[in-house]
């Protein structure tokens, strides 16, 4: 199958999944036990104004329509950028505004965490594989293992308290946009990024180490060694690239996961990202907003994973040529 045909097939699968996911999230509101309108507008008043408000809301949310119509309406709005509203006693706030503020923040946190994790995990993984079996390797492996067992919220709480409050080295919470104050922005993002990165470091390091140990036993590594080039060169120029495929795939998938999986970290450190928005929407029972956020998350996740899979097959020259030959 040619590259384009395979991509096309995958793309169709992608569309299907996106459709089903958005369908599911669009129905979240209807799954709430009881009358959704009463949940959104918890006013027990039965005065005509309130009744009219509720009717208007019911109309707006198409709650009386059959399922397909409801989904179609939701989808139509979504695609046009109408992401629904927060329904508060003070009035309706468009969700889109909050989304536009929160999404970049979550993306920043995700990028920082990934970069940090890779910067630390890659050298550690390479070194562990090079010195496989030594004390260094065992220590690194054990530390990684222990790190994975610490729940991220415990780590976050611990860091926030001991580094932030007790030692006072870094601010324990809050967020400042980069454009306002770059230095403080970085300062405030360090602890949450470290908390998020910790588990990733352990996973990446072990993945890379395991793949590298296998690669180092291959013939072409012996061949490279026999050319008399330095060990460093053999490790970084010859062994690293073929060993990093699994790592890059996992890291790629993590991009999607981390955007939504950072809920706890964001809440703990008061970072106003998508995670906090979701937590808040739940707390305030703003299910319309919740629908939107979950849908956005799912879409991003699916798209990112799709891109990673495509990149993976395109980048590996062996697969590329095998396909060309067919």
């Amino acid at each position, binding site marked *: 199958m040619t590259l384009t045909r395979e991509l096309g097939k995958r793309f169709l*699968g992608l569309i*299907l*999944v996106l459709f*089903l*996911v958005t369908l*599911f*999230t669009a129905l*979240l509101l209807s*799954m*709430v*036990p*009881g009358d959704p309108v009463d*949940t959104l507008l918890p006013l027990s008043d039965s005065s005509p104004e309130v009744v009219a408000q509720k009717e208007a809301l019911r109309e707006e949310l198409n709650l009386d329509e059959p399922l397909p119509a409801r989904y179609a309406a939701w989808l139509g709005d979504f695609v046009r950028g109408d992401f629904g509203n927060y329904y508060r006693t003070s009035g309706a706030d468009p969700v889109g505004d909050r989304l536009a503020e929160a999404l970049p923040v979550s993306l920043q946190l995700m990028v920082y965490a990934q970069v940090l994790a890779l910067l630390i995990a890659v050298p550690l993984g390479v070194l562990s594989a090079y010195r*496989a*079996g030594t004390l260094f*390797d*065992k220590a690194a*492996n054990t530390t990684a*293992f*222990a790190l*994975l*067992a*610490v*729940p*991220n*919220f*415990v780590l976050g*709480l611990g860091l926030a*308290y001991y580094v932030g*409050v007790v030692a006072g080295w870094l601010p324990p919470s809050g967020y400042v946009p980069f454009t306002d104050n770059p230095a403080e922005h970085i300062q405030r993002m360090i602890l949450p990024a470290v908390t998020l990165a910790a588990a990733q470091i352990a996973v990446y390091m072990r993945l890379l180490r*395991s793949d590298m*140990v296998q690669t*180092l*036993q291959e*013939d072409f590594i*012996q061949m490279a060694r026999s050319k008399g080039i330095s060990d460093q060169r053999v490790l970084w120029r010859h062994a690293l690239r073929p060993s990093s495929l699994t790592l890059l795939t996992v890291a790629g998938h993590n991009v*999607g*996961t981390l*955007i*939504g*999986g950072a*809920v*706890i970290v964001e*809440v*703990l450190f008061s970072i106003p990202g998508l995670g906090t928005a*979701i*937590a808040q929407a*739940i*707390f305030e*029972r703003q*299910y319309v907003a*919740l629908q939107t956020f*979950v849908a956005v*998350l*799912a879409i991003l*996740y*699916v798209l990112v*994973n799709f891109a990673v899979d495509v990149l993976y097959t395109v980048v590996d020259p062996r697969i590329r040529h095998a396909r060309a030959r067919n």
Partner: protein
Amino acid sequence: MPVGSVMAPPAAAGHAAQPLDEIDPSPTRRLGIIGWFSLTWLGGISLLALLAPALPLKDPDRSYLEIVRTGPLQPGHILGGDGNGRDMLARVVFGARTSLTIAVVAVLAGLVVGGLLGLVAGYYRGRFDAVLTTLFNVLLSIPALVLALSLVAVFASADQDVSNGRKMSVIIAALAIVTVPILGRITRASALSWSEREFVKAAQVLGASHRRIMFREVLPNVAPAMMSIALLGIAVAIVAEGSLALLGVGVTEVPSWGNMIALGRSDLARNGWAVGIPSTAIFLTVLALNYLGDVVRARFDVREGVL
């Protein structure tokens, strides 16, 4: 000039032509010290959790003024007290009861449902498999915690007073739903590869029913992978329960490791033990589960490697 080959006998009990390199020092098939510690800890904590009401513990809900915000090693209270003066030892044990129940039941449910679905999908393949895989992918495209959070929020927080029992059921159900696609995928992949083996074809040719083959031939081979992931899954579920509690949608009336941390969080400055003790309990349990999960996988992986 004769260009022939010497008949080479099978390779010796020595080594291959390739110079030997390091043996990977990850958990081997034998249980080391850590393995025994893990088993002991898990066994112990499970036993305590199971027998909690019958044990000579203090009442976990009763406040003792003398131990408000104190660390461990108080007279009569080995682990000290939390912000309200409640006995930490009792709370940790009863907390274990709650957290472990939630995690184990959720993963078991996910194992049964996901495992069954995966087994059938991997064995029969075809349209059922395609539909199931798409369904799994859909569920997996929402980050697990967000999905669980949403489900719990929708079904257990809508009205103000939801009974604790119902809350717990919803949490278990939500975690189970999140577990199903993960376990289903692994089981399906494993069942797929085992179903293509000779012995399955042989059984089919002999006329054995599909059901029999699935459960008598394929399932026993798929089980180790499932078990390994299930152990890891329980660890994740325990942490997830903690996350849910911290986000305000966990169980409330009874102690759980998660809500102990959530409650102790505001007190962190004055009494770190209220957070530290349940955190340590979670840490040790997760460590033990991760280690044993790795051991199970290592023990049974070799068979897969031979394929």
